[in-house]
């Protein structure tokens, strides 16, 4: 295990940056692409995770704990957010009988 980890240095930090950027953008694309609010929500989770990954990477390479602590808090918030968000979605589904984001237009005027 230790040896395995020793070799991580071979992966440049840039690669983590590229990876998380890519994941983030896929998340953005997902939000734009889909109309199902649940999938949109999941894409948002994806974006959050992309950022988390980057934070952990930075934290590890800089040897500073704050990044990881922050990720920890992000997870906490994400959990809370998902609980409330899904609650909202269920509410909306109950009222509109759909999770299509286009059904929610009543705030237009």
């Amino acid at each position, binding site marked *: 295990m230790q040896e395995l980890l020793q070799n991580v240095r071979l992966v440049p930090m840039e690669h983590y940056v590229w990876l998380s950027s890519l994941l983030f953008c896929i998340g953005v694309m997902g939000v734009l692409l889909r109309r199902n609010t*649940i999938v949109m929500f999941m894409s948002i989770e994806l974006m959050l995770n992309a950022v988390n*990954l980057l934070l952990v990477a930075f934290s590890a390479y800089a040897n500073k704990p704050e990044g*990881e602590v922050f990720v920890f808090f992000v997870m906490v918030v994400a959990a809370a957010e998902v609980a409330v968000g899904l609650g909202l979605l269920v509410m909306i589904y109950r009222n509109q009988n759909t999770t299509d984001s286009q059904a929610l237009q009543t705030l237009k005027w």
Partner: protein
Amino acid sequence: MTEYIFYFLSFVSVLTALLVISARNPVHSVLYLILCFFSIAGHYILLNAQFLAIVHIIVYSGAIMVLFLFVVMLLNMNAESEPKKPMFAKLSAVIAGGSLFLVIVTALKKAEMVPVISPAESEIGLVKNLGKVLFNDFLLPFEITSVLFLSAMVGAVLLGKKELD
């Protein structure tokens, strides 16, 4: 060897992420997302952040995604009930996302990288070290999160009730 693990994990996470957003059936999306999260947990281990890796699996894969799955099942979603977007909208979404990626990449290219150490030498990700930081320096925020959870719980329960009477 490790780099191969890294590239493999990266490949899995990107692929599953793409599948998440492209799968017709929301149930599949959820399952792909769980896979994606597992691969991310693998990255955490590579970065010597074992604690976070575990927490990640428990919170995301264990709690959040189960919640998602539960809701998807509850609402009885499948590929047929999935709303469709016009081609033009899809195209613009892809272009927007792609150009965002381009812009970010260009921006980060210009960024200057500070000298770094190997993540293997950092032991901050270990439970002991992270626990120390968390309970010494970040005690107050840590405690406050409990309030956040409480309020989220209350909110979720409130929203979940059928009618307010």
